[in-house]
Each structure stands twice: as C-alpha cells, then as structure tokens.
C-alpha cells in the first residue's frame, strides 16, 4: 500500500489589522472586541484588502519558489456555520496569488544523524483567505458561543501536492507555532496499490499540534488500509481527529461531499501585482506591489543558512542541520566560536553532544539554558589551554548546569580539577607506579602494550584524575 498525504496549512500572518477590514489582530482579546461591522457581516459593508497581507503572501510564495500570479482573483466559498456570519468565506479558489512551488528539506534517515537525505515536496498553491470566527462548544448547555475576533484575519493556505510519502516526513516540515490558532493543518489522506490510480481521500481536521498530525495521519492510513483489506470502501468525507482516543471520527455537520457553490467575489476586482519591468509610471506607489522589490528583501532561507554554516565553520551538513533545527542554537554556537580559541570543529561537539543533550533532557529551549555562550566559551578555553582534561570539562559542565552563578575557573578550583602542570611531580608519580607494578612492566616489555593503559589508570588515580592522559602515556613510554 502506498499512502498519499496532502496538507492544507492555514497560517496567520503577523499584521496589525485584518485581511479585509481595519480591525486589530491580537490574541487573547475580550470576545467580539476586535470585530468591525464588516467582520460581523452586517449588510452594506464591503471588504478592503490589506496591503501588508499581500506582501506577506508574495514573500511566502517567493520563499517557496512559487510562480507569482500577477493577476489573481477572489472567490466566495459558501457554507453555513455559526462562526461564519456571512454564510461564505472570501478565498482564492480559481486563480490564487502563487502556484507551483517546492520545498526541499533534509532528512536524517537513521537515528544516529549520520546520514542526510534531501527530499522535495511540491506546493500546489498559496492563497489569501478569510478566517472564520471561533466557536466554543458548551455541551452542558447545548449551545455554541461564537467569538468573531478571529474572523477576517488572514489565513494563508498552502496545499501540498500528493504524493508525499510516509508520515515520519510530514512532521519535519511544520516549524511554526501551533498556539492560538496561528497555524492549523488539515490532512488529506488516501491509500492505493503501486501502479494503480489514487484512492478516495478523506480530509482530517481538528489537528492541534505537530505530534497529533503524525498520529492522525498514521491512524487514518491504517484505518483506510484495514477498511479496504476487509472489502470495504472509503467515503470521500471529512473526519475529525480525536486526540484523546487517538483516532479519526466522521465529523458532524459534514456528511457527504460539500458543495461550496464557488462564485467570483463581486466586490473585489482582480489583484494585480507588478515587477520591475511592468511597473506603471504614474501610479500612487502605495497602491503598487513590486514583486522584484520584495524578492530583494527576502531573508536567508534555511538551506542557504545551512550551507553558509558548513562553509564558514567546516562542520558537517548533519551538524548544520542540527544547529538550525533548534531555535537559537545556531546563534549560540556562533557566539561560542567567537569567544573561544577552540576550533569550530571541536566546539560543535560540545554544543551538539553536551549542551543540547542537557537541554533536551530537561525540555529547555536554548533561550532558557542556564549556561550562556560566554560560560561555555570560558570552559572550552580552559580545555584548549590544557588546564583541564576533557573528563574534567564534562564535570565542570555538569556543575555549570546547576546555574549557581559560578564561573568555570571557580568550579575547577573548588573541585581541584586542574591538570597537574608540574612535569617533575608527574614524572615522579609515573616512576613510583612503574616501580610498584613489576608484573605489568614485565608484560609491557614483553610486548603486551595494552597493559600500559592500566598503568595510565593508576597514575590517574594517584593524581586524582588531574593528569593529562596523553602526557602520562608519553612519560611512561619514555621510561619503559
């Protein structure tokens, strides 16, 4: 069975006002306080398009390598629901603002993060769309409370073309916050046998987090496979994901295929975008959106950032991927590199293996790290100057993690972790060990070099771990 997953992502753009009205966009405001007459669908009101939202849509389209439609159109999508007072939603169904893009991403195909594969997913279209209001279902009193604050806020739709592959990959793409309805994802799922046409698809809604997205898609794929293997059929229906039960259920109010009776939005003429070549001469520049101008102002895309890190610091692609995968980690790494003499290639190990694993264990973000880049750099400097051993450094790190405000040097002094610098003293201890361990010395002289490690261990014990093992080895070898 080949599963096919398409995603519809509704994302909100950070603008001050709504897509079609001048109401404020703000989270957690008193109910119905951010609603204008147009948002409440009072008769006689008209939509007025927000310039900032168009720019954001163009930017997103460019970042996702879409073709920008210089002429796009608005449509009405009709359905009845209490949180949609107009009875229709203004969207862009026929000719959206951007089409046919792609997104490449890197995937680690094993858990050790040692093998990276690049995959590409196609993006069908990006469209500007009105959001509906929010419904709070009060089952005890059998009523629904409607708050129209969200109504009219921009919803930017991106459709991902099937085929998509298996679920593990779905999750990596969504890196936006899910809170407060800033991002909503609906999944379209179908299964078919290789070589045969695509199966009937179902739409899964009510997915409230990335984790649930993976569960919902996985469940739906399994459900469809079981249904088909038992001789049943899949209905083209809308299902909701029940996070408590971990399954999808048919949605109330959405039985049968929806007929949205799309029609052109009569109150909005076509949206025309320009580029450097087609820029009209005598137009008010506030009314003009120049695609090329926006293109020049695109921030660096992740794939470009990743390559830059690899080039600049000589780290592996997997490392670069890991750095950008965690919010703020790349900046943290770069700050440490700036403040230490240790080579970037060595620093990466400490940031990814030691610091990051602490953060993960305690579910902390980089911002919440009790160890600042300054402290880590300080510690790595001690290590670089050979004032402490690698093992000691790890001990210091553990102590720093407690966040008690001590510097690495203070901890080193407290716990007496400094490496013995006195060569003579070290030599004396080595000699003493050699003199004591006659059997081992004989074995080494007979050719069993592995026993040398035991002697190194003994010297370490004598010095309470404060000797540089490399140096100890050299000294012992010289003497033997």
């Amino acid at each position: 069975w080949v599963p096919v997953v398409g995603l519809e992502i509704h994302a909100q753009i950070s603008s001050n006002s709504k897509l079609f009205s001048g109401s404020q966009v703000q989270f957690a405001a008193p109910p119905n306080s951010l609603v204008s007459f147009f948002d409440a669908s009072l008769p006689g009101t008209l939509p007025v398009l927000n310039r900032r939202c168009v720019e954001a849509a163009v930017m997103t389209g460019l970042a996702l390598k879409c073709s920008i439609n210089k002429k796009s159109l608005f449509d009405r999508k009709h359905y009845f629901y209490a949180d949609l007072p107009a009875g229709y939603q203004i969207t862009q169904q026929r000719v959206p603002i951007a089409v046919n893009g792609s997104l490449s991403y890197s995937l680690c195909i094993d858990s050790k993060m040692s093998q990276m594969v690049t995959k590409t997913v196609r993006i069908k279209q990006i469209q500007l769309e009105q959001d509906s209001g929010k419904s709070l279902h009060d089952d005890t009193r059998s009523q629904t409370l409607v708050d129209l604050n969200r109504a009219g806020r921009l919803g930017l739709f991106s459709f991902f073309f099937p085929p998509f592959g298996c679920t593990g990959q779905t999750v990596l793409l969504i890196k936006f916050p899910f809170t407060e309805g800033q991002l909503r994802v609906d999944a379209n799922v179908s299964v078919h046998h290789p070589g045969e046409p695509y199966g009937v698809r179902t739409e899964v809604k009510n997915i409230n987090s990335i984790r649930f997205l993976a569960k919902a898609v996985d469940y739906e794929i399994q459900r469809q496979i079981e249904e088909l293997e038992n001789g049943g059929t899949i209905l083209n229906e809308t299902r909701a994901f029940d996070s408590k039960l971990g399954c999808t259920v048919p949605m109330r109010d959405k039985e049968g295929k929806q007929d949205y009776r799309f029609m052109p939005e009569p109150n909005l003429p076509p949206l025309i975008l320009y580029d450097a070549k087609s820029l009209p001469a005598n137009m008010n520049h506030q009314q003009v959106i120049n695609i090329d101008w926006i293109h020049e102002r695109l921030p660096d895309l992740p794939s470009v950032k990743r390559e830059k890190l690899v080039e600049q610091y000589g780290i592996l692609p997997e490392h670069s991927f890991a750095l950008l995968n965690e919010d703020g980690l790349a900046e943290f790494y770069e700050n440490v590199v700036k403040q230490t003499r240790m080579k970037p290639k060595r620093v990466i190990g400490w940031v990814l293996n030691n610091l990051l694993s602490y953060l993960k264990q305690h579910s902390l973000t980089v911002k919440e790290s009790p160890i600042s880049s300054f402290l880590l750099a300080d510690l790595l400097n001690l290590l670089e100057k050979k004032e402490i051993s690698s093992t000691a450094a790890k001990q210091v790190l553990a102590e720093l993690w407690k966040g008690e405000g001590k510097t690495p040097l203070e901890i080193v002094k407290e716990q007496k972790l400094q490496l013995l610098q006195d060569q003579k003293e070290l030599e004396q201890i080595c000699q003493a060990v050699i003199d004591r361990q006659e059997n081992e010395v004989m074995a080494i002289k007979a050719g069993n070099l592995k026993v040398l490690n035991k002697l190194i261990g003994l010297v370490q014990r004598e010095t309470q771990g404060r000797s540089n093992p490399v140096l100890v080895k050299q000294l012992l070898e010289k003497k033997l």
Partner: protein
Amino acid sequence: QKVSVEVLDHLEHLALVDFRDSEGVERLQKEMEFADQLHEVNTDGVEPMDSVLEDRCLYLREDDVTEGNCTKELLQNAREKVEEYFVAPPGNIPLPKLEERDTFLQGS
C-alpha cells in the same frame, strides 16, 4: 430541460431557499431558460468577465487599525448572548431529508 427534484432538493439544502409552490419552481425554470440564451452567443477566444470592475485597480489599504471595539453595538443584534459571546445552537440543524420535510417538492 426541466430541473429535477434532486437538484431542487439539493438547492434547498445548500441555500436554504424554499420553493414554496409550483410557481416558485416554474420561476426558477424560466430564469434558467433566460440565462441559457447566453449559449447563443459565440464566445470563442473571449475571456469570461467576472467583474465589471475588472480594469479597475483593487484598492490596497495600509495595515493600520481603524475599526473594531464596538462589542456593545454588535451584540445589540443578538437574540441571545452570554458574556459578550453570541450564542448559537450546538451545531448546524440540518434540513430534514426530502421524505421527512413538509415541502411542495414532495409531491413532484
């Protein structure tokens, strides 16, 4: 062609219109015949017009907050409210199926 009962039923569900009697259905029939006259025009190579405003510029508004904050006025229209929320039934109340409805269409 005459409009089928299925289509009429579908329309009543979708748009909550009520084809109250045979006059209503006949009127719809005549409206469709009227619109069908469009087929007599040769529109080969002509882009459909979907707005008489098609050669006007779509006005773009600056991203400023200029409205809202009129909760009281908006809630004046509400029959039922709970703490500044509009109150609606728990879900859509679907139109009953054709067999169960008291409608003219039943007889056709």
